[in-house]
């Protein structure tokens, strides 16, 4: 059972970290508002759920799929706007990006609070997501957990295919490795930046949408995840997708095992200290690529 809860935490962490692995890992932009993009996705699902239940009861079983897509679009569009209005001026000043995006996260939080209220909201999940299935009498696997895991797998596979098998992904990786040279061979690096940021935010939106099936959403849900998410990405080695996956897995299993032996927050404290100690010994993370910068 501890193993399964670790797996479910793994998919959560990985979902959160995927978007950031693109924005932070590939572009080097520290987006502290990343959690708020997740919350945005979750709120989009909530809105869809409300609208569908009120006006189109016939669509209730299917709305969730559409809602995930809408969450992707909404978070991506906001990301596009943010990149255009703010981030693109700050690419050379990473520490300032960090402060500006923190400001952005405060504004987004307060916007959520003003629009949706301070209380946490939960969209009504469609029926096929509720309940659990029992392969044997003693094992009880909740379907929503399985759904989140499946979604994580698909998304990770999608991101991998996109990054390593498509032309745009090639452009993205080329821009990261050598911006000037990429520009010289005819890649429009500014557009690549904008697209990358937009994609990362969109994935954050999907992650937020997936979270609505396992927990409720409040204005500050995003900020609760943000440090964990950054640690997953840094711990894995920022430029490596495989590293992100491995570190999400390691941290999740460690946390759920530590949570079994130590009570409450102390499990998390133990894992956090372990991560920090490892990072002090290997500051570039576990799977750092050996590229000279």
């Amino acid at each position, binding site marked *: 059972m501890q193993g399964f809860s670790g797996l479910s935490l793994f998919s959560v962490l990985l979902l959160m970290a995927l978007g950031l692995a693109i924005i932070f890992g590939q572009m*080097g932009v*520290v987006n502290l508002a990343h959690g708020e993009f997740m919350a945005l996705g979750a709120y989009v699902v909530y809105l869809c759920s409300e609208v569908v239940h009120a006006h189109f009861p016939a669509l209730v079983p299917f709305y969730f799929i559409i809602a995930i897509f809408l969450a992707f679009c909404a978070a991506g569009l906001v990301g596009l706007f943010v990149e255009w209005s*703010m981030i693109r*001026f*700050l690419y050379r*000043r*990473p*520490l*300032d990006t*960090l*402060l*500006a995006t*923190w*400001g*952005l*996260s*405060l*504004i987004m*939080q*307060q916007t959520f*609070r*003003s629009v949706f209220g301070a209380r946490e909201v939960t969209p009504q999940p469609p029926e096929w997501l509720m309940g659990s299935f029992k392969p044997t009498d003693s094992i009880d696997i909740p379907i929503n957990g399985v759904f989140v895991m499946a979604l994580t797998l698909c998304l990770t596979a999608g991101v991998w295919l996109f990054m390593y098998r498509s032309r745009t992904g090639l452009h993205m990786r080329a821009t990261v490795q050598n911006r000037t040279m990429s520009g010289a061979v005819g890649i429009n690096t500014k557009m690549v930046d904008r697209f990358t940021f937009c994609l990362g935010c969109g994935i954050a939106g999907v992650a937020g949408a997936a979270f609505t099936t396992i927990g409720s959403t409040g204005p500050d849900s995003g900020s609760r995840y943000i*440090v964990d998410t*950054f*640690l997953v990405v*840094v711990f894995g080695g920022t430029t490596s997708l495989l590293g992100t996956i491995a570190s999400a897995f390691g941290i999740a299993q460690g946390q759920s095992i530590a949570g079994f032996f130590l009570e*409450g*927050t*102390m499990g*998390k*404290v133990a894992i*956090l*200290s372990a*991560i*920090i100690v490892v*990072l*002090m*010994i290997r*500051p*570039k993370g576990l799977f750092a690529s050996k590229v000279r910068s």
Partner: protein
Amino acid sequence: MGGKSGLINLAILAALLLLVLPLSLDIFRLNLVGKYLTFAFVAMGLVLLWGKAGVLSLGQGIFFGLGGYCMAMFLKLEASDPVSTKIQSTPGIPDFMDWNQLTHLPAFWIPFRSLPFTLFAVVALPALVALVVGYAMFKRRVGGVYFAVITQALALLLSLGIDGNQGLTGGRNGITDLRTLLGWDIRTKSAQYILYFITCIFLMLLILAGQWMLSGKMGKLLDAMREREDRVRFSGYDVSAMKVFIFCLAAALSGIGGALFVLQVGFISPSLVGIVPSIEMVIFVAVGGRGSLYGAIYGALLVNTAKSLFSESFPQLWLFFMGGLFIAVVMLFPDGLAGVYDLGKRKAGSLLEKFRDRPRRPPEITPLIGSVCEQEKS
């Protein structure tokens, strides 16, 4: 910095803190100002660390909290003498320990019975933590964003750790109900006045010390290091040792601020240690001007005043304001108030010269090395 204009700046600050504010505010507000000034200590440390050495720490709350907790532990032990805690099942230990079924004082509390040790620990403990963290990171040439993320994680770690150990640290409520310092009641009005002035004097002494340090060789090296770190390293200076030193200094400053905070406000809790307060301390500096020690103090005062005013009258708008401030400062005024002030001074100066119809000064000859650096950077 330093010299005549440094003295004028100090005189203005002294007049504001020692005359204008005490005469115009009641003790409640003055106590609030005193509280803001304790954040100015952290802000000064951040100016050295971020503005001068170019390393941003998002975990200064750790050191503020460590200094504060050291002081609070001493005061709490004094407040929990066996007579006033005789209704507890174990008299003589702090009340929250009794509630958590502890029967004796944990070992790490015992040294805090002594005031000299406590005062030493207020400075030394934050500096020691900074030494360990800084040494591990800077020796491996970790800086920039990584350093920021890891210090942020440390802040989370410490606040969670304090939160999770209620019996040892007072948990989420923190250490409250602090009364006397060596028998002197710190809750009275006269004590609050005295503590306010002590805070101001400490602040000004430290600012003088900071200016003195920056006006010497250290300041030049830090400037050089921020612009072209590798060249300073190739010239034979130990860059990482300097960074570690500045980080420890900033930590010790924050610790002093934390201790003075506890004396004036009368409590400390993990909510002053975690991620949000730590990053708020950065915005004080960003608003005041990351390169200016005075700017940091005015930034801490202004942002906190704005925070109080907004949260009293428009609690809804506070986060919008704060967020907008972050973005505006970063995008429009990267040098903060100090930058605006310098610009204003230069504009006023040139206007004045035109008005007097004096021959213009010839343009200053920029040092050759400086201009070469500029060219290479762009």
